[in-house]
């Protein structure tokens, strides 16, 4: 009796595995889109819209920090379309970019498909009930020097982390010194930072305004162009893509009014 | 000092029922493997718990299912010599024995008792040894030393010689007699070997499929076993169903004869036991065919099948033996070798 029960339990585990390898419709193609974590909610909404209009296309996303995604592409991960939260990661894959920004000479971007898709804004958000009196980037800069606060930021591989570093430079703060004094805590992608602010385990975090909207966080301060420059999200079809036309079609759709509306709802802006 | 036991315990299909009293001296429990003897000891020691009953040692109630008394083994003052001796393998002989003296606070007294016991059991050379370096006999002496320094009120010995060489048994029995005499308190010795039981125990209880009888005087048990189970335990191999003929005769259907015995025979007779040395060839008796001849160091054991019915006869036959298997022989039985056996109640 015990053996029958054990066998049934094992078979039960096998069911989800077989379901996952479902049958593939001959016509159906799957588009793999690597996108920055900050686009999670918006792109998911757009996927539903696109798949309804194009039933033969199935979209699969990989959301993570742009640095991680670039690494994965470089190592041969299957990707049709890449949307990065910063020019740096796209440059590193674009053969037409200068040797400075693409030192390894990688050639993954399909010629002529690279465009600037969206603009985002870097913001400062504080944890509810645990904000240590931080009400602006100015105050933050001061409190960081004094110590006794904890700021969550992306690490230097994450675009929003790179922007935060620029903000440090703007205020003349030495990141190494801040690290030593224990006021900084690093997340591997922007969602991690957002979660830490939302859960209140840090005093504040530097994230995009889109992440703040999606997480329902109140934005305390916006970073200016002087502090960290413009935040542009480039997108491109990958050379290794097996469905370049469908990828291009989806990319074009992202510029359409209905897709842009979704983006703008959370604080993205089309690139001027 | 006396121990009174009246317990029952059920283990699946096995049912233990033991009711007996033990006074000073060595009482044996003689029985085959699985007959419940070790289980009884474990219940007395507190290692196993009976389903119901009472165990009282020297006026102290160790267990009483009605009164919800169940003393932990630590408080029972019962010494238990395990078949495997259970020496603590991470301690030397000296440390093992000193474990038995943990309750003695006075250092001088502790050293005195320790020294005395070590001398009594001849352990002087072995004090620094580890248990795995000792022979079986030495381990047993160490285990005994550990128990004796603990001054138990009752000593339980679980098949003490079964793990030792048979050739040493006699000498070990003699040593054990001395040790038990030196101990002076009541002991219960459990064994399946009738020779050990006979040599060491003044009274013996028999164990048969979970039923432990009241102890009987050793000599009278061996001379006149009363039931088929007792007969088997004391070494009577030939046991046949039988009925009452008269106060000096037993009717044995399988042999188609009536055997004479030393009375008195009671009416509720149900079987007869015949000692292996009680057969002899006669002119008129019952006939039996030879089924097998087993050589033994002292002669031979002949297995015979009675021509009149079912059963096996075991005969310690004298030399020379000439009959082959299948041959027929006419036999009679000496009355002193015929034992009336009754139902177990």
């Amino acid at each position: 009796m015990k053996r029958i029960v054990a066998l049934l339990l094992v078979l039960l585990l096998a069911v989800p595995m077989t379901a996952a390898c479902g049958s593939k419709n001959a016509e159906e193609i799957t588009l793999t889109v690597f996108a920055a974590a900050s686009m999670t909610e918006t792109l998911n909404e757009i996927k539903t819209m696109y798949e309804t209009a194009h039933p033969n296309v199935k979209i699969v996303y990989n959301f993570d920090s742009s640095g991680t995604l670039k690494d994965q592409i470089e190592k041969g991960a299957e990707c049709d379309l890449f949307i990065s939260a910063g020019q740096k990661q796209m440059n590193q894959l674009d053969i037409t970019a200068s040797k400075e920004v693409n030192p390894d000479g990688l050639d993954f971007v399909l010629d002529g498909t690279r465009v600037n898709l969206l603009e985002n804004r870097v913001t400062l958000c504080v944890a509810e009930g645990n904000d240590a009196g931080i009400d602006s980037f100015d105050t933050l800069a001061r409190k960081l020097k004094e110590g006794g606060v904890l700021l969550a930021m992306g690490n230097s591989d994450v675009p929003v982390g790179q922007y935060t570093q620029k903000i440090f430079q703007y205020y003349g703060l030495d990141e190494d010194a801040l690290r030593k004094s224990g006021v900084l805590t690093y997340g591997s992608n922007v969602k991690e930072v957002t979660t830490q602010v939302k859960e209140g385990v840090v005093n504040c975090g530097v994230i995009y305004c889109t992440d703040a909207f999606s997480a329902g966080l109140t934005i305390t301060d916006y970073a200016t162009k002087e502090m960290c420059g413009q935040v542009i999200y480039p997108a491109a079809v990958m050379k290794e893509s097996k469905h370049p036309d469908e990828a291009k079609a989806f990319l074009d759709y992202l510029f359409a009014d209905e897709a842009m509306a979704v983006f703008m709802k959370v604080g993205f802006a089309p690139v001027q | 000092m006396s121990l009174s036991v009246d317990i029952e315990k059920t283990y699946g299909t096995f049912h233990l029922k033991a009711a007996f009293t033990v006074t000073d001296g060595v009482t044996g429990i003689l029985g085959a493997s699985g007959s419940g003897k070790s289980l009884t000891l474990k219940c007395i020691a507190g290692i196993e718990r009976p389903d119901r009953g009472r165990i009282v040692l020297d006026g102290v109630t160790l267990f009483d299912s009605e009164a919800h008394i169940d003393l932990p083994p630590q408080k029972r003052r019962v010494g238990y010599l395990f078949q495997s001796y259970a020496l603590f393998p991470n301690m030397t002989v000296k440390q093992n024995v000193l474990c038995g003296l943990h309750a003695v606070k006075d250092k001088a007294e502790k050293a005195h008792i320790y020294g005395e016991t070590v001398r009594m059991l001849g352990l002087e050379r072995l004090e620094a040894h580890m248990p795995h370096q000792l022979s079986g006999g030495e381990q047993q002496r160490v285990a005994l030393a550990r128990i004796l320094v603990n001054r138990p009120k009752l000593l339980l010995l679980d098949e003490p010689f079964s793990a030792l060489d048979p050739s040493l048994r006699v000498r070990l029995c003699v040593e054990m007699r001395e040790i038990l005499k030196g101990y002076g308190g009541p002991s219960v010795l459990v064994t399946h070997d009738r020779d050990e039981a006979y040599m060491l125990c003044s009274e013996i209880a028999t164990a048969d499929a979970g039923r432990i009888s009241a102890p009987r005087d050793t000599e009278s048990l061996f001379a006149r076993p009363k039931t088929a189970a007792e007969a088997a335990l004391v070494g009577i191999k030939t046991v046949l169903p039988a009925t009452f003929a008269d106060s000096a005769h037993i009717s044995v259907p399988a042999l188609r004869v009536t055997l004479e015995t030393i009375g008195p025979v009671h009416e509720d007779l149900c079987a007869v036991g015949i000692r292996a040395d009680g057969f002899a060839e006669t002119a008129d008796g019952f006939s039996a065919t030879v089924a097998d001849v087993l050589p033994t160091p002292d002669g031979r054991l002949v297995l015979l099948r009675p021509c009149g019915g079912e059963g096996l006869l075991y005969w310690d036959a004298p030399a020379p033996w000439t009959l082959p298997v299948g041959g027929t022989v006419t036999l009679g039985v000496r009355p002193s070798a015929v034992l009336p056996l009754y139902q177990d109640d």
Partner: protein
Amino acid sequence: MDWFPLWNSLRIAAIGSVIVFFLGILAAYYIARLPRVLKGVLDVVLTLPLVLPPTVVGYCLLLIFGPKHPVGAFLSTIGIRFVMTWYGGVLAATVVAFPLMYRTARGAFESFDETLAYSAKTLGLSNTFIFWRIRMPYCRQGILAGIVLAFARALGEYGATSMLIGYTPGRTATISTTVYQLWRTDDDAGALFWVLINLAISAIVLLAVNLLERRNGWRKRV
């Protein structure tokens, strides 16, 4: 040179191992005596952190100890915080290492010859004496193996630790989270340095354990 990750990892692993040692052997000892059904259920529950991915374990710990959740909120009122502090590292390490100690100890105790305990009881020795001076020495090999496994697991903990305490240099960074961050920010030399440190620690620990095992000469089966 910031040596904090080394010091932090060692103290988390050491403290976690000590806690896991006591919890593990006590759980193994008492649970073995429970009735069969209860014992089976507890076995499953207590072994879960071993079979769950560390990120799942981390998520569950956050659900319990996060400041916005009941237990975490209560604990912060009395000044105890597990999230984003090195105490959380100890908590995560303890949770993931516990099943290793528990199951190894269970196995070791089950191989223990109970007649030794019975014999000790009839001699009047207390249960505590029997546990620490007879049972534990007898099961020494297994217990030692359990401690090594637990320490190794605690030292190498990444997933649950990362989720629970993040990466705060100087406060919560461990060797494993540091290696990840250094790799992610393209500091290969730095990452390799910490990898070698970790290898060195593991080698030293295993060597020490090996020496401890060999000194133990007596055989158990008498």
